[in-house]
């Protein structure tokens, strides 16, 4: 296995100019801290590059956010968890809070502007967050999104624990991106231990990841239909998703595929009958294609989607957006194509993009990605027919530092792992695609009407629990 993680030591004084340069050439992932250093991460064709900046005890961190606003959350997190003082930060509020000290929302001021607070508990089956809308008439002037209501102090809790014992926990940081995150975690441990994964296990991993992508994308499409007020579309999408969840269960014993990818391969008993799954998927593929054709040719639906919640390319780039949300604005960022890993290295894979950056474009990219997923599923499952997937290899942990990235349904999902010689976690950091993309949601709403918030929000459909941790 090629070791694709590299580190470069950069002094704090030189960091800003190196970051400026790399931001143009690569996909910035963000930064994370320990008590002694900060690592700023970039993903490119060559793998992951980390800029390691040492911090003396008590040394302050010069905020990168004034030039590159996507660092704002990362730096607020460093302040909240590692207690690092961040100088010249555009947002000094703590990222995490306790119930008796919830940060005040930032509200727009001006004649005729009023503020409405929604949440943290919502009128649906959705995760908690507090949204403060500043509105002028029907239009949104500004939205303050107070996340962190699902914060559980998970990362500090991981520290000192045996890395292999955390496999069930990694799968349950977020139910939406569980396969992607488990894969990134397995790769982190394998890359440190220089373990090669056999071809059949790699095909199985790809199949599991694509099944996750299809069920998440279908749920998103159903949620977009709900936001557009088209209930029949939501019901139909949920019905199709349910069929995938049943297939997930047949393939892995779990409807959401929890813990199907483990360090060393895939869990024993996963995908024992690929032929049956392949046949069922073929039928489902046709039904999904027919549904999407019908949904996205309805004029009443299209009129709600087109022109709503526009993210232009420069905004997406400024916030280093990832996933379908970025690709719908024309940005190339699919890790499966950019830095292929596992079985994706076997296939010529072209990522799907659109240019309008509106709700329709984000829907369109998902529809086409579902098609590509079915192509990959068919090829992967064919490779698995007529043979067995080996049991996962025994894994011994090796000390070191690594970051791995995989393409989840929401975009780039990364795991940063620092392991001690005894296999204990010194630092485990999760950067989820949703964490990168939240700033886009509020900005995409500016100038849109308040009743379109559910529609625009659902066109991103970002998770909270992997963002808040």
């Amino acid at each position, binding site marked *: 296995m090629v070791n694709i993680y590299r580190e470069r030591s950069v002094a704090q004084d030189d960091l800003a100019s190196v970051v400026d340069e790399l931001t143009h050439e690569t996909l910035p992932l963000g930064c994370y801290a320990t008590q002694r250093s900060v690592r700023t991460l970039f993903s490119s064709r060559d793998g992951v590059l980390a800029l390691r900046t040492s911090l003396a005890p008590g040394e302050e961190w010069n905020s990168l956010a004034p030039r590159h606003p996507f660092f704002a959350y990362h730096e607020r997190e460093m302040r909240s968890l590692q207690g690092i003082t961040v100088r010249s930060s555009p947002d000094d509020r703590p990222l995490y809070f306790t*119930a008796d000290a919830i940060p005040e929302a930032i509200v727009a001021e001006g004649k005729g502007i009023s503020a409405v607070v929604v949440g943290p508990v919502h009128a649906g089956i959705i995760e908690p967050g507090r949204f403060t809308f500043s509105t002028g008439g029907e239009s949104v002037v500004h939205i303050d999104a107070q996340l962190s209501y699902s914060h559980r102090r998970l990362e500090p809790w991981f520290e000192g624990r045996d890395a292999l014992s955390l496999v069930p926990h990694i799968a349950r940081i977020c139910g939406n991106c569980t396969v992607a995150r488990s894969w990134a975690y397995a790769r982190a441990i394998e890359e440190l231990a220089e373990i090669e994964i056999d071809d059949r296990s790699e095909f199985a991993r790809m199949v599991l990841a694509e099944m996750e992508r299809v069920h998440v994308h279908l749920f998103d499409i159903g949620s977009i239909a709900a936001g557009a007020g088209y209930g029949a579309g939501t019901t139909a999408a949920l019905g199709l998703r349910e069929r995938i969840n049943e297939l997930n269960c047949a393939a892995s014993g779990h409807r959401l595929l929890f813990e199907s990818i483990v360090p060393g391969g895939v869990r024993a008993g996963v995908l024992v009958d690929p032929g049956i799954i392949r046949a069922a998927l073929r039928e489902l593929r046709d039904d999904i294609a027919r549904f999407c054709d019908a949904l996205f040719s309805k004029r009443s639906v299209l009129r709600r989607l087109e022109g709503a919640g526009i993210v232009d390319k420069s905004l997406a780039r400024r916030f280093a957006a990832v996933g379908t949300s970025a690709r719908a604005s024309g940005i190339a960022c699919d890790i499966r194509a950019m830095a292929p890993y596992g079985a994706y290295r076997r296939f010529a894979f072209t990522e799907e993009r659109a240019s309008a950056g509106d709700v329709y474009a984000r829907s369109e990219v998902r529809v086409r990605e579902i098609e590509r997923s079915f192509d990959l599923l068919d090829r992967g499952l064919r490779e698995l027919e007529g043979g067995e997937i080996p049991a996962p290899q025994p894994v011994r942990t090796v000390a070191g530092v690594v970051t791995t990235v995989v393409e989840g349904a929401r975009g780039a999902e990364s795991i940063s792992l620092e392991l001690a010689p005894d296999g204990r976690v010194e630092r485990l950091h999760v950067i989820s695609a949703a964490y990168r993309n939240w700033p886009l949601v509020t900005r995409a709403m500016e100038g849109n009407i308040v009743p379109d918030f559910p529609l625009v929000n659902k066109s991103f459909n970002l998770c909270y629990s992997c963002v808040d941790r």
Partner: protein
Amino acid sequence: MLTGKFARSLGIRHLVCGSCNGCELEMNALAAPQYDISQEGWSIVASPRHADVITVTGPMNEAMRLAAQRTLDAASDPVVVVAIGDCASGDGLWCETGDAGTGAGRELGAAIGVRGCPPSPDAIREGLRAAATLLDGRKS
């Protein structure tokens, strides 16, 4: 089929207290045609004041403690708390990790616990039926 007043008209308010969203994904499946709880007369309501049942997920985390209590306080009697999933029921993987508590359902006095990580939509529906039966059997 259950025939009680609540069994045919249940208002459900959902409360997330440190869940991984897995339970939420399965609760959302209840709107799929394979389960379709709207046919039972059940709905997800827009305010705790409209709720007969409050479903809770997660181990309970610090950030949600106050909002969770206020949601319960705002609900009008009778209301039944249903713990959805192993975390809310008190022995899920995340209970007593990080800043998490001992289970949102346990802490909020759940009368019913639906087990699983996450529980299947069928199991969740059964838990909601049990809540309706409890409400119908109660003297109000």
